[in-house]
């Protein structure tokens, strides 16, 4: 079974600084996808960024970028120029492509605190 591990229950960063959230996963699949979701206090789930496993190039979305290390099964999220609105729980999620399972597997989340 696939597992997703987020080893940092909580991270704190000064506003305007850069922070990196860690995620590792375990899978025997070759076709899969990885996602970072943000959950602010309102508890909605917002897609931040996604990465296809077959792509070597790391995904970027404005201030958000990932460091995808396929061999190490690592998928970290870097947030540059942190803003107060970035404060939230961040969940790493894994999904299988092709004929695999439908449901996403989530990590336990990292609570990100932005210090003004």
């Amino acid at each position, binding site marked *: 079974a696939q597992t997703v591990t987020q080893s940092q229950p909580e991270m704190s960063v000064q506003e305007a600084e850069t922070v990196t959230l860690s995620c590792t996963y375990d899978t025997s699949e070759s076709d899969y996808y990885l996602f970072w979701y943000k959950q602010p206090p309102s508890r*909605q789930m*917002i*897609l931040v960024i996604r990465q296809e496993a077959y792509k070597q190039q790391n995904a970027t979305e404005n201030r958000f970028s990932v460091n995808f290390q396929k061999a190490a099964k690592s998928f970290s999220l870097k947030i540059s120029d942190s803003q107060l609105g970035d404060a939230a729980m961040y969940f790493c999620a894994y*999904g299988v492509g092709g004929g695999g*399972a439908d449901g*996403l597997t989530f990590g336990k989340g990292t609570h990100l605190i932005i210090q003004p």
Partner: protein
Amino acid sequence: EPEVTQTPSHQVTQMGQEVILRCVPISNHLYFYWYRQILGQKVEFLVSFYNNEISEKSEIFDDQFSVERPDGSNFTLKIRSTKLEDSAMYFCASSEYRGYQPQHFGDGTRLSIL
């Protein structure tokens, strides 16, 4: 931008009662999902639905649960004979296809069982 909408935002129910959570997926999406998040814990997959039938379900999705697409827009999760441990946030999600196409989540329904 199209959104997944869920109603109600908060549902309070007596233990043993039946509850129906409602979702309107994004209109051109084909796959629909329900997830559960017990307070302070990770999001867990319950069930996926495609072509008017369950595509996949997790161990959590036992006979107490059922899903239905009663018309062309709504997608419902029914929980029969609710238990205290059913208290959680329930998220509906939809996607255009499987795999890389991301699952778009609704704002969730907070279910409180008394």
